[in-house]
């Protein structure tokens, strides 16, 4: 079963920046650990939502706005794919993502085939 794991930072980046150095190192190591977990296919590192451009099409014309579709804090900050047996296994991996313990969250979305 494939799950798409969406990472939201919330306040996590600010809170992590205020951490002592060894704890910051732990955060980096934990992300590294996630990427090396069996079943994980890491996503491309995402740039900041401040640098996002959002496109809508109205009357056949592309309209662009600065920033993410939702608010800065609500926007997706990262993702990875997890192949796991069931939701409990996915929850265990999600709980190891540092953002989840520093005020952010991980959303687990089962992949589904519609066609």
């Amino acid at each position: 079963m494939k799950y798409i794991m969406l990472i939201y930072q919330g306040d996590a980046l600010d809170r992590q920046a205020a951490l002592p150095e060894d704890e910051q190192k732990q955060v980096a190591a934990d992300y590294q650990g996630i990427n090396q977990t069996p079943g994980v296919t890491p996503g491309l590192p995402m740039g900041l939502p401040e640098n996002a451009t959002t496109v809508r099409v109205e009357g056949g014309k592309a309209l662009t706005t600065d920033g993410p579709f939702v608010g800065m804090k609500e926007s997706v900050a990262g993702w990875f794919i997890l192949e796991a047996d069931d939701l409990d296994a996915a929850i265990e991996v999600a709980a190891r993502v540092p953002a989840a313990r520093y005020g952010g969250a991980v959303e687990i979305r089962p992949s589904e085939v519609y066609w």
Partner: protein
Amino acid sequence: MVTTLDQVFRAEWGRVLATLIGFLGDFDLAEEAAQEAFAIAADRWPRDGVPSNPRAWLMTTARHHATDRIRRERALAAKFGLLVAGDRVEVPMKSTTFPDERLELIFTCCHPALAIEAQVALTLRTLGGLSTDEIARAFLVPERTMAQRLVRAKRKIKAARIPFRVPPAHLLRERLDAVLAVVYLIFNEGYGGREELAAEAIWLGRALAELLPDDPEVHGLLAMMLLHDSRRETRFSDGELVLLGDQDRSQWNGAQIAAGRAELDRALALGGRGPYVLQAAIASLHAEVPCDWAQIAALYGRLGRLTGSPVVELNRAIAVAETEGPEAGLRIVDDIGLDDFRYLHSTRAELLRRLGRIDEARDAYLRARKLTDDGAERRFLERRLTELAATGPR
């Protein structure tokens, strides 16, 4: 005959359905097959007699129905050259022994990835065997809403692959607490007057105690529910609320109190010190004459340290008021920050009334009344206000 059938259905529905889900891996298909089997039984058994092993009969009939359906779908798919959607497979199931998978089922229904309302509805539907309409009526929501809630929950179980299993050791405590919370919530809904839900919660509690005989909290919850429910007949008189001290003790259900105490003893023998065991112990003391309020206050103190709940602290205040006087109770109440909780104000009012501080008591009763919309509770507060007006200075 009809009652016998009902009893068999009631007793077997959860087990048959749980085994079918375990075997088919699909809630909808299993439910449909179980329904079909029970319908055939309702048609045939009154005429031909109840089979010697009703469970095996129901299980076999349901399994045939499900297998037929899978074959039909597969044949149809082959005919149109389609891929078979999903992963429905035929697994050989021994026809004489059927595993009891109700525990797997209840852990799936009460999985924290489902909304609590969905957990409750699904538990009542699958284990309790209540119809969608019955659940909708018990929770005062339209049947359509309840049906959608159930459909969504079942869809999520499948799409997100919520496991059908008893959780591994490191998750068990947390997940079992979630299950107990669902049963307790159903009981509480019933305590407000909808008796069928209280009975349903006790029935689920009994099933859990049978399935997890070594867990003290399971027995604690069952004990607490039995003890509270034993006073059900006396909590209302002609639709009006009657407080514990004014209840007609001769009308309490003695057999149920004894059953509750037996469950409590079992929980204590298993070393139980958890929140449900403590609440059961308190409920047991409440059923004694005279009431040991000092002991009750001490138990509420322990429960409060365990849960950190201000509601528990409020209950401790009531017990302390009984042993050390209303002044001591009031001091505790005034330290609790639950300003929108109606029972805080009605408790304050009662203690102030006992202290003869009539004006303050009236204000507190008014505050409680403002926060109460339930008919019987509101009328109770009205009566207290009228009594105050008659006895005290304004």
